[in-house]
């Protein structure tokens, strides 16, 4: 499936990205291009998690090395990953909130996502990008082949955030080890004048979270950067200011619902602009 769509969005819109069958099969490619004119407000979301199914067995790797240029081999050379690309242009005074559900890579999935945002001075962006460990009830925990998500944000043509996440088992150990017991991991970026108050709120909350190191050490394994979510699972988060531009929120949670709750709380001020709060139940 190769799917390309272009939207020209002029005023407020809520846009769902819907795939056939609720997920991506091997070699599916979805490409979205999005242009926000001056003053437009757009929220892009999904109706459920983006499921990524296992990649096909790729036998003919040797073919690409031989480099023979006939039709059959060029078809075989097509990389095995499935994925999405999104290119967004955000004009002055416009706001894009890209607030999808997490990506869930099943066992042996190979997923590659590239998202590029070109924000004009005075434009605003909220970008959430997160993933979960897999079909946990089937014992698939961080069991995919490879996950890549490249986010690049340019403000006024200069690169302000580059987040090239690449997860694959390797010399340094498995992805599962690296996740340290967490099942939902991700980040949110806030940029621009329309989210300045949200950024201030996030930073103020972060500032208030200074903890007593000594108290924690006495408690032994008790976690300081970690909190406990409403499900009772562990949750960690931190907020970093971007100099002159906004903030980056990073989070990791044992329970996906806790990550939803954290995002919902962080994004609540968007309700004034969007009319609904992302990741809250009334949003769907």
């Amino acid at each position: 499936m190769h799917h390309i769509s272009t939207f020209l969005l002029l005023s407020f819109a809520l846009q769902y990205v819907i795939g056939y069958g609720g997920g991506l099969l091997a070699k599916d490619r979805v490409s979205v291009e999005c242009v926000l004119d001056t003053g437009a407000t757009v929220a892009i979301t999904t109706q459920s998690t983006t499921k990524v199914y296992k990649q096909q067995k790729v036998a003919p790797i040797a073919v690409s090395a031989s480099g023979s240029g006939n039709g059959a081999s060029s078809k075989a050379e097509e990389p095995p990953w499935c994925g999405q690309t999104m290119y967004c242009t955000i004009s002055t005074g416009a706001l894009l909130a890209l607030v999808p559900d997490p990506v869930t890579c099943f066992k042996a999935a190979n997923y590659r996502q590239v998202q590029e945002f070109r924000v004009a001075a005075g434009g605003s962006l909220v970008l959430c990008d997160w993933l979960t460990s897999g079909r946990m009830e089937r014992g698939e925990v961080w069991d995919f082949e490879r996950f890549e998500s490249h986010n690049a944000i340019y403000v006024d043509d200069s690169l302000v955030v580059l987040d090239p996440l690449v997860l694959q088992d390797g010399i340094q150990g498995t992805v599962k080890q690296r996740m340290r017991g967490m099942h939902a991991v991700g980040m949110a970026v806030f940029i621009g004048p329309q989210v300045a108050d949200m950024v201030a709120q996030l930073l103020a909350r972060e500032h208030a979270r200074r903890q007593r190191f000594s108290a924690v050490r006495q408690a032994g394994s008790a976690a300081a950067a970690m909190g406990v979510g409403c499900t009772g699972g562990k949750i960690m988060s931190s907020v970093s200011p971007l100099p002159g531009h906004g903030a980056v929120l990073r989070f990791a949670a044992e329970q996906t619902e806790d990550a939803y709750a954290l995002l919902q709380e962080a994004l609540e001020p968007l309700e004034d602009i969007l009319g609904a709060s992302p990741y809250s139940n009334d949003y769907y």
Partner: protein
Amino acid sequence: MTAGIDAEADGTPSVGNEPAAARAVWSVQWLTWQLCDSALPTGGFAHSNGLEASVAAGAVSAADPHFLAQFLKSCLANAVALQVPMLRAVWDTGAGGSEGLLKAWLQADALANAVITSHVARRASAAQGCALLRLACEALLCTGAHGDALTEFRKQLRLSQSANLSVQARPVAPSSLQQHSGAAAKSSGENLLVVWVWGHLAPAFGFVCLSAGIDAAAASRMFLYTVARDVLSAANRLSLIGPMQGARLLADISGYVDLLLLENASTAECIGLPLEQQVAQVDPVLELLQASHEQLYSRLFNS
């Protein structure tokens, strides 16, 4: 910093029976040791690379040294994926000729600032990089074509730093920071003239090694050595391990570093790609832990 080699060309008398070439090699060696030494005043001792925050979060504990070894491996893996490509970009460009060196360096530096999204790690990288460059100028005596690039880079760095001070509160500024908006408006004009330079550590390290005559393979390993050195020194001071255990871990880790570098180099996609596609973040939870450093009420380290 090619001073040792140049001195020979200048006709410095030879010492004893040692041939000039051998002495040139030793002078590079000498600088190599100095750059790896924790006594080099770049402030490495002030950074735990997120270890202190990880201990507080319970991700590393004194009870089980295995966690510390795992943490060290994570730090090195992230450094290989994220920092070494920037170090190499500067070194490789400079090795091909000093033309374009400054440009490549400025690009790598800007990239470092965009890709290190944790403010704690970003500040640590810039602080150590700036200190290293100051040393390169004033103590290690960079000269020649590389010296010109260094002088120009540091000039831009100073401009950025002074502009940054007045701009810091600018567009993020919500109502609470409005009182600074006067100064911000004034500086936003000059902002256009400033090439933003931060002096991040990895590109700066690449530059300094290049001008010291240290080859790229050694430069990458030296950089990783300093990462491991600082983590273990922090672990020592946090009473997670004793100095003897630390020394053993540091000795043991070199094979792992080789494998990491090999794995990264064999990720064939990387070859020939622009720098921004070579860098990768491979441990998001580690980055989160590093960024949570300032949540600690009391702390020994800067990062």
